[in-house]
């Protein structure tokens, strides 16, 4: 954890403590607060245990991981052997690349198309607007999981099975994000745009140089959600790829799990390597992520 996030965390904790206001006379170190602190610490520790244990296992030798359960002093000691093996022999880096490429493409297309459509719904009185908008709202309720069979048939027909496009296209739009962006655009005062339009600026120009710069925070939140969702998605990439060279990280890991079988240290090393990018993303963007969830109520899964 960087000192930056640390200091922000402390600031925020301080602010909340202030906001919660132990009024003068209320003891911040009262017994009930201490009990609450202990309960909280216990719960948080419980939540971190699976991580800690996975890290511990990944640092053991394969023999030690498969021999002793709770040992904190394995005979072979701790080391990065499992990571070295997974990175050199496995296809992990390739899968990570596939995940990065497809998730980035999905994010780019989704954000661009949702922002354009959201703007049209918010500001442009086009024919059929209400009809299309109603269709999008209705579509939010359709779980993509139920469309796997017809979508797969479509991919066969388009010859997109085992291609990047096959992974990307069916994930590259999100009705919920259109709604979120429309709601945000609705709040931007129209007067800001009117001045530019009176001067003869085209809609696209207004959108690009006035609306988008004002929408950076919401665009960032939407982009992060879409990226996390795409990075972690399992079912669709699992269905549309059979070629190991095209698998995304979650799909590839599933095959590792079956292939390595009893190699626990390597299993845990792969899992941790796969989790790492998103943890880094979170540490960089935690404010946007938290704000995004708080204000929109939508997330990845």
């Amino acid at each position, binding site marked *: 954890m960087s000192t930056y996030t640390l200091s*922000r*965390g402390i600031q925020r*904790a301080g602010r*909340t*403590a202030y906001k919660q*206001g132990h*009024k003068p006379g209320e003891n911040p170190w009262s017994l009930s607060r201490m009990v609450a*602190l202990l309960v*909280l610490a216990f719960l*948080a520790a419980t*939540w971190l245990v*699976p*991580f800690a244990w*996975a890290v511990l296992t990944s640092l053991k030798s394969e023999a030690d991981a498969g021999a002793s*359960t*709770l040992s904190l002093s394995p005979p072979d000691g701790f080391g990065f052997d499992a990571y070295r093996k997974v990175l050199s022999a496995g296809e992990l880096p390739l899968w990570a690349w596939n995940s990065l490429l497809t998730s980035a493409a999905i994010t780019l*297309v989704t954000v*661009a*198309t949702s922002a354009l*459509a959201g703007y049209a*719904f918010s500001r442009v*009185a*086009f*024919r*059929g*607007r209400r009809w*299309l908008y109603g269709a999008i709202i209705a*579509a939010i*309720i359709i779980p993509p*999981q*139920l469309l796997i*069979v*017809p979508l*797969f*048939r479509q991919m066969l027909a388009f010859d997109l099975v085992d291609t990047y496009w096959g992974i990307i*296209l069916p994930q590259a*739009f999100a*009705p919920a994000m*259109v709604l979120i962006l429309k709601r945000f655009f609705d709040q*931007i005062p*129209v007067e800001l745009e*009117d001045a530019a339009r009176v001067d003869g600026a085209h*809609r696209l120009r207004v959108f690009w140089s006035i609306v988008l710069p004002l929408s950076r925070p919401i665009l960032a939140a939407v982009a992060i959600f879409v990226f*996390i969702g795409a990075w972690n998605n*399992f079912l669709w990439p699992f*269905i549309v790829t059979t070629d190991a060279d095209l698998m995304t*990280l*979650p799909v590839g890991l599933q095959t590792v*799990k079956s292939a390595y079988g009893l190699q*626990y240290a390597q299993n*845990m090393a*792969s*899992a941790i390597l796969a*989790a790492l990018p*998103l943890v880094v993303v*979170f540490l960089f963007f935690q404010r946007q992520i*938290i704000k995004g*969830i*708080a204000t929109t*109520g939508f997330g990845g899964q």
Partner: protein
Amino acid sequence: MPTAVDSPATAGLVVAGGNRMGAARARRDESLTGWAFAAPFALLFVLFLVVPAVYGLYLSFTGETLTGANGKLIGLANYSEALQDPDMWRSLGNTLWFTLLSTVPLVLLSLAFALLVNLGLPGRWLWRLSFFLPYLLASTVVVLFWSWMYNPKLGLINGVLAELGIAPVAWLQDPNVAMISVVVTTLWWTIGFNFLLYLAALQNIPEQQFEAAAIDGAGKWRQLFSIVVPQLAPTTALILTLQVLASLKVFDQIYMLTNGGPAGSTRSIVQYIYEAGFTGYRFGYSSAISYLFFAIIVLVSIAQYKLINRRSAP
């Protein structure tokens, strides 16, 4: 829903063309512009949602298989077969059971966590990080962690039980325990999202309400039930709606943890749809079950909507 489009400012602009001809042209231009903006999204939306949804409905009335043989219309045969299929009912039952078992703690515990963290105790960022971090993991990673935790011989849980002198439990292999294990994993994985929603809602409750209540002599617990819980009602409604819909669609963690076993005791309806289509190659039948399940989702959504609207009405 009032939108900016109807605002007088924009309406004025549109008519600014002067004569009626100009206004009509302006309106046509506006339509073209709107469609140009919406077209990229609309294209993907139609191609990858509307078309497969309609095509799936058509498939559900056919005997379609992987190779495309027997693709003839067979009417409602798939549907009547599904309604008499004990495996379908079992998967559906498992899914509803999982939804109930997961939704209740995912709402109550996330509220408890948020209340605790919101007390203003030191270390706030650490608590928030601990509870939220698992939410960022891919299902595959979650499953790798937890199949190791649940490992009958080497797993941490049985290891700790052994230290306490308790006999090992076959967490994923015992039909009576497997669903609970799946729920525990799901709880660990996804609680962070609900937790953050509650935390944000808690911070929006005006401080003055607590001060007023304290002056009136209301204790902390009284404040919790008279101020906090009612103020959180809209958030609870949102969490409940999202959670039920998410739980009904469960697939990843169960498929990878237990593969629906032992003996079909954890198989979800989405897994049954997947298996009918992709291992049984019965695309028509799989589509029919999809639509039956979709009907259930629509019913649940309507029921939730009515319940929530009635409760929030005065």
